[in-house]
């Protein structure tokens, strides 16, 4: 994940915090739930009590291995953390725990009225996991780059939109993801991260870590992003 901007502008605040475990730069870090040596890594489905975004990783001694250690005499593991609760993060969308690129769909049945995009047999059913309230956009064909919000899906490889596209053609390519701007899901739980905690899995229904989608960048299968605002920062002035 990348820090992209602060909602409402302002100045980033960076703190160097002690850590309780090895942390990867570009991942969200959390306050530990119990007695601990410092901040802890987030998980693939939880950003509860987030402290911010790790901007680097490593220890504070030249020549020492840059690994978290509890060996007596070893240096502390310190992480620079961007702690603004209104920091918007740019997250690459992938389609597996190991960061496979998004599934490319191909129009199998043309739509004259532009209200549907129907895929080809063999592709993943867009209604399971359900892509409703997500985004569909063309990555190739006559409408490359054009996107719409999905209002319904069916088991017959069909996603339906409310504001019609132009008529599509068999062979046009498109992508579907369960994310669209302003989406916050059920109590904000929308993100399941890949195993390395850096990217969001867009092949799943929105559930997991709490965040709100601020914006979406619809490019190709391997370079499309969502901009998210984590919703459970310990610096947001909330009591829980």
């Amino acid at each position, binding site marked *: 994940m990348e820090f992209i901007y602060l909602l409402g502008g302002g*100045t980033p605040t960076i703190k160097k915090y002690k850590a309780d475990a090895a942390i990867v730069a570009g991942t969200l870090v959390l306050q530990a739930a119990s007695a601990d040596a410092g*901040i802890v890594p987030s998980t693939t489905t939880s950003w509860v009590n987030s402290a911010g975004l790790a901007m680097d990783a*490593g220890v504070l001694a030249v020549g020492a291995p840059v690994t978290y250690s509890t060996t007596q005499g070893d240096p502390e593991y310190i992480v*620079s953390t961007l702690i603004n609760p209104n920091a918007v993060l740019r997250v690459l969308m992938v389609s597996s725990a190991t960061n496979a690129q998004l599934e490319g769909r191909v129009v199998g049945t043309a739509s004259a009225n532009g209200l549907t995009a129907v895929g080809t047999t063999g592709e993943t059913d867009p209604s399971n996991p359900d892509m409703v309230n997500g985004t569909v956009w063309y990555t190739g064909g006559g409408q490359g780059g054009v996107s719409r919000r999905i209002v319904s899906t069916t088991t017959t490889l069909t996603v339906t939109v409310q504001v019609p596209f132009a008529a599509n053609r068999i062979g046009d390519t498109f992508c579907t993801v369960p994310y669209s701007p302003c989406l916050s899901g059920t109590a904000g739980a929308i993100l399941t991260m890949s195993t390395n905690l850096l990217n969001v899995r867009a092949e799943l229904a929105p559930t997991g870590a709490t965040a709100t989608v601020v914006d979406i960048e619809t490019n190709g299968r391997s370079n499309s992003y969502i901009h998210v605002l984590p919703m459970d920062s310990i610096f947001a002035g909330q009591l829980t």
Partner: protein
Amino acid sequence: MSAETSPTILVKRTFTKQELLKNREAPGKKKGLTAGTWIHDLCALKKVITLCPGCTHKFNPGRLGYIREKEYPAVQATCDGCNIFDIRCTAYFFEETYRTVRSTAADRRANRTASLRRLATEGHL
């Protein structure tokens, strides 16, 4: 005659999450260590360097493979040189790490341009 011991009153205090996290903040450079040595140690570990207006001109980022954060000319941080919290610090990132943790307008523009160029090259536009 034995000395009397004064009673001790124990008051349990509930720390807030913010106070607990404050205790987890790194203490900065050790006493006796010069600022330059400390910052070179941080650079060797590819850490983010934050320097206040009084210290920033003493740091040459290019020589150490660092770049200055330009989209945000000021960050709030504890100065790695003088160990004072300042709201007008300058942040320096190790160049290799920078693109992992920061998305700049230039990066996004290049990404978008590449995407549009691909569509045009493939005849979709």
